[in-house]
């Protein structure tokens, strides 16, 4: 539930950001994520950024997936 898609912040104006997903652009509200910066990826849900994606954790998860898939 709760479709949210990772989107890249291209620019910020007050509480509003312009975000981009593979060329699709939209306005997004940063009222839930005031700490977000240009260059961050956020989870976009119904026009609001609900969280800033942690790229370090993303990388760690991929590493974990690779490790798990090699060892049983």
């Amino acid at each position, binding site marked *: 539930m709760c479709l949210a898609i990772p989107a890249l912040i291209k620019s910020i104006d007050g509480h509003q950001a312009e975000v981009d*997903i593979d060329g699709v652009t*939209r306005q997004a509200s940063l009222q839930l994520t005031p700490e977000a910066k240009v260059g961050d990826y956020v989870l*976009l*849900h119904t026009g609001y950024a609900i969280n800033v994606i942690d790229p370090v954790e993303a990388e760690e998860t991929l590493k974990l997936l690779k490790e798990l898939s090699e060892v049983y």
Partner: protein
Amino acid sequence: MGDKVLLAHGSGGKLSHDLIEKNFVPAFGNPVLNKLDDSAVFEISGQLAFTTDSYTVNPIFFPGGDIGKLAVNGTVNDLAMIGAIPLYLSLAFIIEEGFPIAELEKIVNSVNQAANAAGVKIVTGDTKVVNQGSADKLFINTSGVGIVPPGVDISGANAIVGDKVIVSGSLGDHGIAVLSQREGLKFQVPIESDCAPLNKLVAEMLEASANIHCLRDPTRGGLATTLNEFAKQSQVGIMIEEESLPINKAVLAACELLGFDPLYVANEGKLVAVVAPSDADKVLARMRQNQYGTEAAIIGEVVNEHPGKVVMKTCLGSSRIVDMPAGELLPRIC
């Protein structure tokens, strides 16, 4: 003439004639139309194909086209999908009172350009104007006649087990381009509608192979609907591979954003072909040489299993049904 369409423009009197003579005839002028008789008269021999469609797209102008371009190509394509050579179109407008003449002129221009590109002539037409509120800006109906060359037998019921399924290019472009302009969605996409005439592409495919069994353009309801129609009409199963589907990155992203499945999003300049396996590669090669088939791809095949149903092999190697859509695609939050 003022700058807005009035009820009088549709009533057959002087204003109507002005509209026809100042706008429509100069745009479409051809010997048949120019007679301005009640009916178009022309000689035609062979097996006739005849089709009609009405166009109510909203918004009427969208990236890559407008309702006029759509009205020509949609009907040209319906003829092409049966293997017919499209020849003549009728063109009927139903216009809401108050519609700007400048926009009507743009649309007439689009119709003209599209008809020229497709190589068809507009030979007869009609214009009605209705009270404000009785139509959503402008509706168009086009009917078309064409000739089916001898020996051509294309039908959704002709698919045979073993046939290959080919699409002519990227899926979902039109639907997403139009949606991006709709009130309430407000997203920008670097995608234009793929609205295009496919008759020349089809003619080239038919030159390459006499074993093209089915053709259809996956308009409303997308690829999924067309494949389901073939499966039911032919009582065969169809299996497609998720990884082989050509879809633009931006269309994928827009679909993710709105919760759509690209398999259900409309196309207006694409076709699906079901071809005998012996000829699939050469049909594909020929398609790729046409401007409207450069990204053509084999996406699956007709199988014995699950007759009447379409199944997709996912990237993980599992299979799942691709069903007919239920009603309009609606953006969802869940």
